[in-house]
């Protein structure tokens, strides 16, 4: 029985991580195709992609979009959460629902909706429009995390700050945000990872400047190559780093 459960665990992990392992292993392939057999260890594909200007530009774009859109989503989500947690408005339940609603809509629908909107408004597609798309998907996440983290503890500290002469902006800056720092950091890093490897929205809402997943997709159209594995491994490395950073901020924090 014990053995069986261990076997199950191993199988589950293998199922989740095998594709990643295969991806990473064949990025070091000394040959033209990322398929078995493994012909030897080589860094040539990494060398190649690091020398690929279009790819490196796309990588930079992805980082830019991820950070800027996540920062925006975080600020807006935090302020909305703060307002809805503190002020009792008629219909605040409805407002809260509306803010979370985009989570339940598929990225494809969001992208199509935004595409139509931008076309109608005569806004040309760029990294900005993709960034707006990412704010749309990450805002509900940031809002939900920030809202869930706000308790009576914060509320009382904010009251004390106001009592001691703080303005609303000072309360937010000196008390609310620092007290919620772990949750806000978690929301930010999650947003970054979501934006970082998001494809559909970035694909539909960019034109000339594209993000990394879009660039990888166009590489894939010209056939399989260990180079795409190498890019994939890099993308994975960045996502993992973000998650690890989040873990450090959120869970390793001494009480």
């Amino acid at each position, binding site marked *: 029985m014990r053995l069986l459960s261990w076997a199950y665990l191993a199988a589950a992990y293998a199922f989740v991580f095998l594709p990643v392992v295969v991806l990473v292993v064949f990025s070091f392939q000394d040959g033209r195709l990322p398929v078995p057999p493994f012909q030897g260890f080589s860094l040539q594909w990494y060398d190649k992609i690091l020398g690929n200007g279009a790819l490196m530009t796309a990588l930079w774009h992805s980082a830019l979009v991820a950070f800027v859109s996540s920062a925006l989503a975080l600020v807006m989500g935090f302020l909305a959460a703060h307002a809805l947690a503190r002020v009792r408005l008629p219909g605040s339940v409805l407002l809260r629902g509306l803010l979370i609603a985009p989570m339940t809509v598929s990225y494809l629908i969001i992208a199509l909706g935004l595409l139509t909107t931008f076309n109608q408004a005569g806004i040309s597609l760029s990294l900005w429009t993709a960034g707006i798309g990412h704010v749309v998907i990450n805002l509900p996440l940031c809002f939900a995390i920030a809202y869930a983290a706000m308790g009576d503890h914060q509320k009382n*500290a904010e009251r*004390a*700050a106001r*009592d*001691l*002469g703080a*303005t609303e902006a*000072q309360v937010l800056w000196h008390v609310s945000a*620092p007290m919620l720092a772990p949750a806000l950091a978690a929301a930010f890093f999650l947003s970054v990872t979501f934006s970082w490897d998001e494809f559909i929205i970035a694909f539909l809402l960019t034109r000339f400047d594209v993000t990394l997943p879009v660039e990888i997709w166009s590489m894939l159209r010209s056939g399989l190559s260990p180079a795409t594995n190498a890019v994939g491994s890099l993308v994975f490395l960045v996502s993992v780093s973000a998650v690890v950073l989040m873990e450090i901020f959120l869970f390793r924090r001494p009480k």
Partner: protein
Amino acid sequence: MTASLSIQSVTQRYGTALALDAVSLDIAAGEFVVLLGPSGCGKTTLLNLIGGFAEPVSGRILIGGKDMAGVAPAQRPTTTVFQDYALFPHMTLADNVGFGLRMRGVARPERRAKAEEMLALVGLPGKALRRPHELSGGQRQRVALARALAVAPDVLLLDEPLGALDLKLRRAMQDELKEIQRRVGTTFVHVTHDQEEAMAVADRIVVMNAGKIADVGPPREVYLSPKSLFSAAFMGEINQIAVRDGQSALGALVPGTGTLLIRPEAIGLNGALPLGLCRVEDVAFFGTHVRAHVTPLKAPGTRLTVHLAQTLSVEPGAVLDLAATDHLMLEEE
């Protein structure tokens, strides 16, 4: 540094429930006033109105003669010590205590010096760089007090500041609180439902009941000559004997109609008001006194609580001839 406070016919409602019913109270500058009453009587509500966290439905609140209607908490010359301390967990004690000064644009070195001074005042010298989670409950309480006093408010509001402390620490802190208030001279409005704490610190006690003031006066007056049955009973144990036209279950004790009130410690072997022979029902030794329940032979349905001298050893079943040294008659029944 200090100011008078005038509460004029203040009413507060939550929905249809009346939390405060036309409460009026004048507090002199530098006075230590305690709002005392059972849970839900409106103490916190009144404190919140003074601090500006809510506006009354009707009535006025004046601090130092100025009407506070529409003035936000930040602009009022009041600060509050909250029951749960509400310290800022991410700041050092120095930053916590200096927070109010920082909001007033005071420079860092000056803030720091003031914070050190305030921490020393509340008995926490040299702990400026600690954080709140490193402190005990009593120490956090002191920091909250230092933080509220650092901005030199005219009126300090304290909502059950000692409520979360154990009894021994509470008794020690209340003495300190009184001492600090004497030194800074600020008007203190302190909320509690512990009557011993109230008597230990107050210049004047305000007994509240169901949104109304039941009694006001110095501790001695409120305890010894309460103006209502409610405040008589709330300030401590008391024997109540119904009297109608000078007649009671114990015979003719006092003239008039109403309720005869006798504190347990006023009953003993000698006194001006004889209560007659009483049978001792049960006895417990309390250290400072012997607490016993007795039944007068004349009125088997009546039970009196008495505090007898520590040196008196009595057994249940004994019959004593008791009398009261002090009593009070209220018209209320």
